[in-house]
């Protein structure tokens, strides 16, 4: 209960009457003071009773017209309050707290005032959600005041509705090889016996103490001697996303850039990893080097962190907090490998590219993707599945990066956005575009032929179809019509 200035004024008046009564030896003043104090107490009792009743009679509801929304989209938020009382009730105001991720347009504030004789009231206003994530609208704050302005009391209602804010979609995406779309969903992978549970490791002779349930009866019958089958617990397979967000990934129409397409692919892997509880890590790289990295861990906060990181990626160069690669105890590493700051002479740079001393890390000039992966923690490089999302603007660098990934990781999947599919003036010269696509596809096939490496093209289905329509077969058909 919070008391107001009016309450303190009354208390001061009571105190003054008592002091005056004592000093002037005037019992009438003290009688008046006691009467006033009794009145104050009676008013407080009535207020306490009124608030207790109101708590049961008041219904506050908060609602959103959608439970799932994309960033920068608008939802209608409604705050509604009603009092189920036969007569008047204490006047109250209800103030809602909008999550920080939501932006409120200018207009009515999210609060509702219910006068003593008002039974219900509501307010609806549009909210724009700016940040990806799951949010719960906090409980509204109800403030009740008494009719005389002596007391107020605030309490909070239960939490409001939940909403999931997702990153905007780029529409249909082509993921495939040589113009053919991938049939399996992006992010899905073969179990390969590594999805958890137990797998048989070896059969060995029975030794006293082995549990009877592990005896392999078929092997025992075949070998005429008791044998047991050893099992080992399997771990889920770790997935690391290597996300390139350099300037060249900004090519394409606004909202449909290379990066937007690759973000959708990466988001699919993130969702898949979360669904199967696979340990997930990521490395993001821009022109200045590694912008953020996280070792693979199967924890909810890592999935959220990865989701937010994917959503926030853009092609603007980020300024890392430190100039050198650092690792913290939490497993998060933020740093930079800056080949642009190289002060080596051309011959030094060339020699550096061929240096491969045992135990030393080889940094290649002007190849931040390669250098970034090289500088990443061992847990990142040695993931079971390394997913590289990049473009074909520097084939040599990508070749080196895939080679490095293959040497460390068990399996490598490369998603490449062909630059030709993101040229805005593509349709003006389809023949040239097709030739460029062929060169790209040859490069993709080259990567795909590396053992345990799978390379996919990613782009807009319309653009890929348009390019393929420039193939000689199609051109001949067009000519013969």
């Amino acid at each position, binding site marked *: 209960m919070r008391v107001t200035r009016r309450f303190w004024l009354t208390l001061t008046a009571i105190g003054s009457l008592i002091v005056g009564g004592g000093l002037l030896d005037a019992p009438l003043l003290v009688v008046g003071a006691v009467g006033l104090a009794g009145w104050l107490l009676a008013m407080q009792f009535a207020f*306490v009773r009124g608030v207790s009743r109101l708590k049961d009679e008041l219904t506050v509801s908060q609602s959103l017209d959608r439970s799932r929304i994309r960033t920068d989209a608008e939802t209608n938020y409604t705050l509604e309050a009603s009092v189920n009382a036969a007569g*008047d009730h*204490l006047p109250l105001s209800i103030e809602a707290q909008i999550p920080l991720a939501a932006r409120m347009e200018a207009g009515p504030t999210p609060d509702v005032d219910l006068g003593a004789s008002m039974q219900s009231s509501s307010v609806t206003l549009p909210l724009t959600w700016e940040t990806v994530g799951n949010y719960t609208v906090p409980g509204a704050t109800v403030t009740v005041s008494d009719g005389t302005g002596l007391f107020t009391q605030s309490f909070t209602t239960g939490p409001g509705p939940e909403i999931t804010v997702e990153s905007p979609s780029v529409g249909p995406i082509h993921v495939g090889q040589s113009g053919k779309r991938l049939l399996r969903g992006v992010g899905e992978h073969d179990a390969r016996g590594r999805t958890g549970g137990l797998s048989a490791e070896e059969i060995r002779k029975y030794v006293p103490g082995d549990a009877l349930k592990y005896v392999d009866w078929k092997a025992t019958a075949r070998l005429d001697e008791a044998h047991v089958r050893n099992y080992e617990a399997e771990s889920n397979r770790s997935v690391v996303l290597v996300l390139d967000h350099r300037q060249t990934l900004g090519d394409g129409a606004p909202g449909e850039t290379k990066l937007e397409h690759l973000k959708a692919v990466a988001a699919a892997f993130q969702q898949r990893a979360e669904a199967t509880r696979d340990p997930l890590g990521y490395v993001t790289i821009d022109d200045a080097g590694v912008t953020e990295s996280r070792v693979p861990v199967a924890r909810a906060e890592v999935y959220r962190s990865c989701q937010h990181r994917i959503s926030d990626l853009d092609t603007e160069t980020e300024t890392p907090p430190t100039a050198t690669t650092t690792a913290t105890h939490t497993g998060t590493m933020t740093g930079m490998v800056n080949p642009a700051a190289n002060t080596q002479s051309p011959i030094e740079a060339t020699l550096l590219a061929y240096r491969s001393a045992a135990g030393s890390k080889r940094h290649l000039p002007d190849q931040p993707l390669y250098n970034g992966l090289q500088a990443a923690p061992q847990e990142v490089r040695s993931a079971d599945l390394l997913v590289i999302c990049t473009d074909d603007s520097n084939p040599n660098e990508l070749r080196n990066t895939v080679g490095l990934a293959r040497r460390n990781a068990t399996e490598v999947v490369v998603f490449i956005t062909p630059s030709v599919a993101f040229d805005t003036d593509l349709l003006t010269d389809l023949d040239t575009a097709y030739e460029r696509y062929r060169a790209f596809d040859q490069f993709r096939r080259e990567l795909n032929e590396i053992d345990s490496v799978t390379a996919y093209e990613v782009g807009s289905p319309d653009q890929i179809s348009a390019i393929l329509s420039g193939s000689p077969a199609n051109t001949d058909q067009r000519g013969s019509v």
Partner: protein
Amino acid sequence: MSMALARGRSLQSLPTVLGLLGIVAAAGGLVLGGPVWLGLVGVVLGGLYLSGTVVLAVVLGQIALIAVDAPSLLSLVLVEGGLFLALLSVAVETPDSRVAGNLVALVVPLLGGLAWLSLGRLNLDPFRAGSALLVGIAIVGYLLHRYLLLELDIVTEDAASDREFL
């Protein structure tokens, strides 16, 4: 309603008429038992009441009463009864008027009578007796505050909510 109290009273509401009757009775009691200039005090009482500061009107009425030399029982009853009506009018203006009015009608005469008896008949020191009664009322007020916190299930381990009250 609180806005009405803060900005003054409407002369058309029944509680205000009741309160004004009380103020007129109190002013009459003052004039009846004391000098004529106390009629001016009655005017001030009415002004204070209509401006929404009933407590100040009651305080001024009590102070004016001691200006009356040996007030008669009639003037005493008129003044105290009138001021009581003014306080009662505020209580019946609240949303829960029945409960608030009954409480004021019960508690104020009871405590006032108790104070009058202890001071007039038992010859207790006014300051000590008043302070003792005030402390008792403060304790009851604090218990009511704690009860409300429990009722709303917002009791916290820190003393922040207590500080809000005291």
